[in-house]
């Protein structure tokens, strides 16, 4: 452990995010850091050297050469005309968005996708049928033309609708990414101007200050304490200093180049734009990402599968009955018309639109829970996710350093690290704490930005680095007004922290007017601080630092370090008043004050603590059968510590190393099967073969990848996909974009994420919070279940729509249900109810079952199709036929008379067709009766669809367990069904073009017994499923 200590300290948390947020407010008074002027660039003596980096050699050029190369002037910048020319030549400085499919193609795809083809076939058959009729008889009725037109309209309208829905969801995304237009400060025509970053051209001189995003690839000409965060490009989270010196041949390594879309953390710089838009380094990577193919989403596969089933049924029944009709000596023309009817009856015209609405409803619901879905289908993908590869920083953690532990008086105290901690509960009575708190308060350069008195302490914006911010907030919480304390203890001298000293020191006058001594306070790397101490404070008393206390110190230090925390040591010294009188002038360069024999006070450790919602979310994931893999660029120890604290590595599981340590044996001797968890570093991963990686992924349930580069993320994702898993990946950097794209669902961070990552992702987490993913998973699973219900509901009536045709062809009764009427069911009464099922609550805890297997658990499986078609569908047909026969019988045609009546019935010149009572009917009278029959059949289906809707609320539970009235939207759906049917029958009854007639009120109730039967039957089915899980019944009846 000992040798790892310095590394622990060096683990740099990504403080950049804090900075970024801070910068959104006020940019001006932020920079008070050290100013180091970069003098004249040193002449590049390697300029003649031919470099392998063909794209970029600007870092090797001198300022003069750069000016010549880009025809610009460092002082005056480009002229506006020059800039305009260049802009025209190179195009705007923006990443060209990934190749968009042209809108018209998207639109046409909607027109031919899914069932559309079938319906087009139906429409064309209609027109052909009319063509044949017309060539035989010029006065033939236009019915078939109307029907064909209606079918075409249906396709076009549903196509437009789906297109509109898709466009709308894409627009949400577009508006999101355009929220913050990037600006750049540029020198043109010797003037400083703020222009949109898009208008930058090569040769422009731009000025950058901390907090800005670098607007293009720039070669630095001048820099003051400039540090950049290249994490989005390289994955390194440590801030990189930038200067104007050429330090490395590789343009990615050299210090004098700033990259497009990286962030300047602090300092200021002036640079010349050397590449814009897609020619930037980021542009290259982004274009690589677009090379990774987009996988078809699981739900798209499922819907395709479903379309295939339905289309298969439609075509095979259609063709079968076409053959039957022809062999029954029907005319070919009539057979074609039957075929159309069968197709229309079989195709659930409204279903795909319903699915789209359902998905977008869920997308909206998820957006409210901070999951912004870019691609509607991704809504469900999240639900079928079986592995989540999560980032650590910001996603699992709060992304801010927070004091986690304190060590003083030989004791480790825990500090509260939750998001909104207001009080610290550790023992604050000790005198040591009084001293320690003073050091923490005084030896700190961070300050609150003024004017935030009302803001909760933890949310206040701080100027200063991550650890100092943590300490400031900590002391503010514990002690109250820190600034006031600092004012009372006037600071007379200070040595800021630097990486060679590894300590920070300041000297103060004390606030005790009787004590004229100066107080020297110091904090820094614990071992460095301890070196300078000879005493240690215990219970407020100084004691000599002996072997045992030093050991206690090291034990505590190791323990805290082992938790992955950044540990700081604190010490102080009251300078004797005689040696250092009030007027003494301290010189930090000459160090005219003691630097040894200080009094060690305590340790304080900090960590970027996990978000308080995360452990719970991880537990939920685990019970939901989702494996959470941590993939981070951070140090293994920190990674493991966080993984343990959030539960990615559960409390009782050990890695091979842990076991080795516990049993005190060599790592190689440990039985690998005993270890449940594993921490794999990027270095180890590099040496692994595909098979080895597969073995790691499949044999350990708890995996942490540490020190990985973003490129390795892609390898990990591919490895997971080889396990047949649906993989969700979170990421924020540009370099994550290939992995995001490769993943089944890429999740980008909304706050920390780069545009490239957001572009590649399918979903954006607005709050960067892992817990949001879990709510997303829940919604995704729910929508899958509910889509099943919707589809089952919709498929059921297909049989009730199909049977009339089959009976009509085979038995020869007058047509029970017209094609137009079918469309009114599919696109009228059934639409709202099927959407209403999307609001159904989960039946059981959906987060307690395994994620669905994407190849085995289909959306539409055999039991669903069989149960819908052959059970409920058939019952529904019988009920509807009952209504139909009732209407005919009560009007004079008994069922026995109807058989084989079709031919005479449909002859236009037969105006004296005899019914069962010897009465004679004209053609129009019969037609009207036929329409009444359609209406009756329609009402019959509608009434039973109400029962169908109610039974589809659950698949396993009794309706009474689920609650009849919990989902209010279902009742809206039922009301809409009834209202639409009332309007069609009574409101439009006189418009005969729609083939609806006024139906006697009592006929509305004829199908009620069958509706009740459907309900009872389904309750019995569910009862047996609940009683005998795993039985034959369960296997065949549970969909």
């Amino acid at each position, binding site marked *: 452990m000992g040798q790892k200590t310095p590394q622990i300290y060096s683990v740099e948390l990504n403080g950049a995010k804090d900075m970024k947020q801070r910068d959104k407010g006020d940019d001006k008074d932020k920079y008070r850091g050290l100013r180091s002027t970069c003098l004249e660039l040193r002449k590049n003596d390697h300029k003649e050297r031919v470099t392998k980096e063909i794209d970029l050699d600007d870092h090797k050029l001198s300022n003069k050469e750069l000016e010549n190369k880009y025809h610009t002037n460092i002082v005056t910048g480009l002229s506006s005309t020059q800039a305009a020319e260049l802009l025209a030549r190179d195009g705007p400085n923006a990443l060209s968005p990934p190749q968009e499919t042209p809108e018209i193609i998207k639109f046409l795809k909607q027109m031919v996708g899914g069932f559309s083809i079938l319906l087009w076939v139906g429409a064309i058959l209609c027109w052909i049928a009319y063509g044949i009729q017309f060539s035989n008889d010029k006065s033939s009725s236009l019915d078939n033309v109307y029907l064909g037109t209606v079918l075409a309209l249906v396709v076009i309208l549903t196509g437009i609708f789906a297109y509109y829905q898709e466009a709308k969801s894409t627009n949400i995304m577009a508006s999101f990414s355009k929220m913050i237009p990037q600006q750049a400060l540029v020198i043109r025509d010797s003037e400083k101007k703020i222009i949109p970053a898009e208008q930058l051209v090569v040769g422009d001189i731009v000025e950058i200050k901390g907090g800005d995003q670098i607007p293009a690839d720039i070669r630095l000409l001048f820099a003051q304490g400039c540090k950049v965060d290249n994490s989005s490009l390289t994955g390194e989270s440590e801030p990189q200093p930038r200067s104007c010196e050429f330090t490395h041949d590789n343009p990615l390594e050299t210090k004098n180049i700033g990259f497009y879309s990286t962030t300047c953390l602090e300092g200021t710089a002036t640079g010349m734009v050397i590449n814009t838009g897609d020619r930037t380094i980021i542009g290259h990577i982004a274009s690589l990402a677009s090379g990774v*193919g987009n*996988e*078809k989403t*699981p739900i798209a*596969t499922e819907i395709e599968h479903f379309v295939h089933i339905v289309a298969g049924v439609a075509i095979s029944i259609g063709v079968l009955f076409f053959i039957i009709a022809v062999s029954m000596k029907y005319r070919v023309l009539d057979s074609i018309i039957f075929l159309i009817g069968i197709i229309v009856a079989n195709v659930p015209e409204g279903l795909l639109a319903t699915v789209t609405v359902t998905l977008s409803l869920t997308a909206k619901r998820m957006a409210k829970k901070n999951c912004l879905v870019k691609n509607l289908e991704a809504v469900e993908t999240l639900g079928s996710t079986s592995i989540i590869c999560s980032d650590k920083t910001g996603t699992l953690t709060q992304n801010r350093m927070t004091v986690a532990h304190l060590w003083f008086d030989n004791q480790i105290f825990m500090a509260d690290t939750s998001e909104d901690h207001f009080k610290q509960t550790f023992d604050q009575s000790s005198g040591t704490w009084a001293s320690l708190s003073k050091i923490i308060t005084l030896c700190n350069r961070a300050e609150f930005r003024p004017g935030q008195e009302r803001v909760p302490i933890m949310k206040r914006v701080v100027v200063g680095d991550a650890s100092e911010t943590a300490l400031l907030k900590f002391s503010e919480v514990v002690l109250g007004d820190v600034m006031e304390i600092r004012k009372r203890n006037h600071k007379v001298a200070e040595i800021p922290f630097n990486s060679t000293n590894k300590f920070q020191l300041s000297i103060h006058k004390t606030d005790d007017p009787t004590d004229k001594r100066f107080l020297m306070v110091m904090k820094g790397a614990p071992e460095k601080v301890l070196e300078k101490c000879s005493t240690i404070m215990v219970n407020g008393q100084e004691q000599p630092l002996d072997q045992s206390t030093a050991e206690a110190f090291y034990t505590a230090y190791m323990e805290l370090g082992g938790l992955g925390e950044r540990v700081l040591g604190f010490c102080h010294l009251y300078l004797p008043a005689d040696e250092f009188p009030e007027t003494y002038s301290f010189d930090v360069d000459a160090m005219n004050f003691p630097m040894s024999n200080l009094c060690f006070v305590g340790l304080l450790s900090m960590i970027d603590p996990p978000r308080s919602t995360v452990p719970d979310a991880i537990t939920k994931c685990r019970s939901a059968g989702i494996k959470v893999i941590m993939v981070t660029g951070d140090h293994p120890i920190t990674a493991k510590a966080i993984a343990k604290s959030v539960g990615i590595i559960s409390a009782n599981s050990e890695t091979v190393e842990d076991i080795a340590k516990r049993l005190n044996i060599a790592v190689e001797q440990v039985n690998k099967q005993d270890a449940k968890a594993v921490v794999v570093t990027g270095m180890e991963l590099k040496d692994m073969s595909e098979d080895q990686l597969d073995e790691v992924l499949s044999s350990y349930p708890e995996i942490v990848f540490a020190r990985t580069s973003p490129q390795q993320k892609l390898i990990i994702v591919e490895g997971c*996909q*080889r396990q*047949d898993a649906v993989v969700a990946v979170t990421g924020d950097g540009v370099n994550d974009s290939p992995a995001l794209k490769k993943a*089944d669902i890429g999740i980008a961070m909304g706050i920390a994420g780069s545009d490239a990552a957001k572009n590649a992702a399918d979903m954006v987490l607005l709050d960067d919070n892992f817990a949001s993913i879990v709510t997303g998973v829940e919604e995704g699973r729910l929508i899958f279940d509910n889509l099943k219900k919707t589809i089952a509901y919709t498929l059921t009536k297909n049989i009730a729509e199909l049977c009339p045709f089959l009976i009509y062809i085979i038995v020869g009764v007058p047509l029970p249900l017209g094609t137009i009427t079918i469309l009114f069911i599919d696109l009228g009464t059934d639409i709202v109810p099927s959407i209403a099922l999307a609001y159904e609550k989960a039946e059981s805890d959906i987060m307690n079952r395994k994620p669905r297997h*994407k190849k085995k658990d289909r959306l539409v499986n055999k039991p669903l199709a069989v149960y819908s078609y*052959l*059970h409920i569908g*058939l*019952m529904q047909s*019988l009920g509807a*036929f*009952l209504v139909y*026969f*009732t209407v005919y*019988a*009560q*009007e*004079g045609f*008994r*069922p026995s008379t109807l058989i084989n009546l079709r031919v005479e019935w449909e002859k*236009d*010149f037969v*105006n*004296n067709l*005899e*019914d*069962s*009572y*010897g*009465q*004679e*009917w*004209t*053609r*129009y*009278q019969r037609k*009207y*009766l036929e329409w009444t029959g359609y209406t009756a059949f329609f009402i019959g289906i509608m009434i039973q669809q109400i029962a169908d809707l109610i039974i589809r609320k659950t698949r396993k539970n009794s309706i009474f367990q689920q609650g009849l009235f919990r989902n209010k939207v279902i009742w809206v759906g039922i009301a809409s069904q009834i209202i639409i049917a009332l309007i069609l029958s009574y409101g439009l009854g006189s418009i*005969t073009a729609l083939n609806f007639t006024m139906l*006697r009120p009592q006929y509305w109730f*004829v199908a009620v*017994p*069958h509706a009740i*039967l459907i309900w009872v039957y389904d309750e019995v089915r569910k009862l047996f499923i609940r009683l005998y899980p795993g039985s*034959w019944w369960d296997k*065949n009846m549970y969909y």
Partner: protein
Amino acid sequence: MVTQKEKKSCGQVVEEWKEFVWNPRTHQFMGRTGTSWAFILLFYFVFYGFLTAMFTLTMWVMLQTVSDHTPKYQDRLATPGLMIRPKTENLDVVVNVSDAESWGQHVQKLNKFLEPYNDSVQAQKNDVCRPGRYYEQPDNGVLNYPKRACQFNRTQLGDCSGIGDPTHYGYSTGQPCVFIKMNRVINFYAGANQSMNVTCVGKREEDAENLGSFVMFPANGNIDLMYFPYYGKKFHVNYTQPLVAVKFLNVTPNVEVNVECRINAVNIATDDERDKFAGRVAFKLRINKT
């Protein structure tokens, strides 16, 4: 990974099908074992048996609501339609005078149609009723008491009766008879106690000219009230529908003439926009002479 489709060779596909049809390892036929098949067949046998029973029961209950002698509702039959004989495809009466076969079929149909109207048959089966008033036969307490019908003798059709007619209802001479009858509607009191008759006209002006003159039997195309009401075929077994015969005397030959006949009765509307046969009948008449 999802999109990767494994290409299968033809032989593999056949092999898979074979295994699907009969899998010797699991003893599965078409994806199910014998027991499973037995279960499934038994289930569907019981289930569909139950459904059939249920449907039959509900149908039976429904049929109990329907009486044997009158339909429950007659709202669609408020206006009886008119129809012609001979019944021809698309109501086109085409007579090629020189071609005996072309009108021969009409004549045959008419002969058959008029057979029940023979005086002998009528006298044997039906009553002589008092003309000018409805022949009402109340049940008088006896449920569904069989009803008697009034005589309509073939001879009433005069020149169109076809009895001893060498011209075959005038078809052989180009002066065809067309018979008009009104659709039967149960319990319909046609004419509302006032006399009614059938009239025919050419549909348009030129049709009227081409139609020429015609005579009607019974005179004026009268339909007597005594043939109403109709009590339905079950209890009004020998009901004879009254007819009106129209003999077209000098139709312009080789021209298609649109003829429209309608009934003039107080309670029969003949101006229904949608139903072109409500209280009227339109047909085409064409006499081809060489």
